[in-house]
């Protein structure tokens, strides 16, 4: 158990005019830990995820991240260039819609290779080899490497997006409804894959989902949001099996079994 968190989120709030996006969110995330953010539509999950990942600037609060040199940096006070570099190398962001995270008009291999080039890899043969290896890990056969993602099914695209994000060995991955648009059997396969990769690579991850079964399967810890506020936060199986807050009890009781 390491004693330093990877991420410290303090007092993060985001208002859209007078409307609350999220309000006063505080937590720490440790290496290897998977946090699920759950809640109904409009509760502020995506807003919070985007604030933490600096895709959105919050109205108040701070997020500190432990860099590879061991020093914490305040993400909102970093230069745009530093932040972009961090996002390209040390982080991954898996979008609900793979089209938002992939370049649809370049080949699958290039989608993965591009991220390697961004961290300074220049050797074409090695890039292609790593890309092929990663396609294999997400169960895309090597003979599809030159196809464009638009020729792929939804599940394949999502797996490609995951490969593109993980190829640089990030320490932190954000996922917004990673299984959202997929049908149930494809979801199970993807979840199993993500679960295996997160375990093998020891990644920290923040996963937004409205699906409690996804939270149960992937996460160690869980935050329940309602109207922009975090109303319950704890060990995932504790929150699901012994929910304390009225709203969490409602959420848990409205599904058959998780």
């Amino acid at each position, binding site marked *: *158990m390491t004693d330093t968190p990877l991420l410290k989120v303090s007092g993060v709030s985001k208002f859209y005019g007078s409307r609350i996006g999220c309000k006063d969110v505080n937590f720490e995330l*440790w290496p290897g*830990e998977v946090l699920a953010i759950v809640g109904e539509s409009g509760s502020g999950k995506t807003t919070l995820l985007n604030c933490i990942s600096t895709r959105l600037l919050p109205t108040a609060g701070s997020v500190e991240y432990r860099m590879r040199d061991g020093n914490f940096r305040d993400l909102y006070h970093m230069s745009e260039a530093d932040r972009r570099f961090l996002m390209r190398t040390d982080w991954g962001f898996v979008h609900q819609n793979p089209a938002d995270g992939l370049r649809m008009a370049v080949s699958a291999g290039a989608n993965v290779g591009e991220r390697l080039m961004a961290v300074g890899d220049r050797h074409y043969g090695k890039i292609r080899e790593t890309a092929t290896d990663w396609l294999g890990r997400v169960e895309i056969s090597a003979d599809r490497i030159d196809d464009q993602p638009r020729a792929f099914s939804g599940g394949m695209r999502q797996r490609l997006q995951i490969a593109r994000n993980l190829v640089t060995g990030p320490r932190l991955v954000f996922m917004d409804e990673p299984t959202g648009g997929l049908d149930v059997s494809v979801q*199970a*396969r993807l*979840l*199993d894959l993500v*679960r295996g990769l997160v*375990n093998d690579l020891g990644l920290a991850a923040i996963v937004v989902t409205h699906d409690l079964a996804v939270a149960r*399967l992937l996460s*160690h*810890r869980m935050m329940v949001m309602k109207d922009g506020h975090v109303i319950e936060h*704890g*060990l*995932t*199986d*504790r929150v699901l*099996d*012994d929910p*304390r*807050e*009225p709203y969490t*009890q*409602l959420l848990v*009781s409205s599904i058959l079994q998780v």
Partner: protein
Amino acid sequence: MATPLVVSEVFKSFTMHLRDGIKLPVVNDVNFSVAAGECVVLGGPSGIGKSSILKMLYGNYAVDAGQILVDHKDKIVDIANADPRTIIDVRRHTMGYVSQFLRTVPRVAAIDVVAEPLVIRGVEASVAKENAAELLSRLNLPRELWSLPPSTFSGGEQQRVNIARGFITSHRILLLDEPTASLDATNRRVVVEMIAAKKEEGVAMLGIFHDEEVREAVADRILDVSAFSPRKAIAA
């Protein structure tokens, strides 16, 4: 070495917010400890709170008041107030739990389900699998099932996977919630032997066993949970 498990003045109730906020008291003032090499069995009628006690010890249920002290990596951890990260570390290294039913994970083979607790502790995958295979054959799970996900297994087959998974680590504390309920006589005897072996190794065990024969065979002491029932307290 400290006593592996000490439970002190623990209270538990459920507040049912969807049913007008009624409060359901489950147990009051629970006090007991389990020594190394001891197997304590929780007794009492259905619904008295036996499983709830195990779940609180494992961090799966919250605790209203009191302490659950566990000797974890030579430090005393209070599960009742520990943060999620600490509880996960306790589960990984110190406290195992065999639930009454296996929670299946899609697409993961039975043998990997069993090996997983070793793998996440850093044991090499091939070694973990060997250990898993040994346990599964001991529990007479047909070899042709090992590479299949347990979701389609029978109740007794799933339960044997669950038992193997719980017994594969050398955790100092093991919680058992009716592990033998859906097993035949042969496999019940295997589990009794496995529990005896854990005792020899000095593992502190706390279990629920409805089967009288099993209970007689494994229990050093029976703790009647009715003694902690709030209803009894009211009646008295």
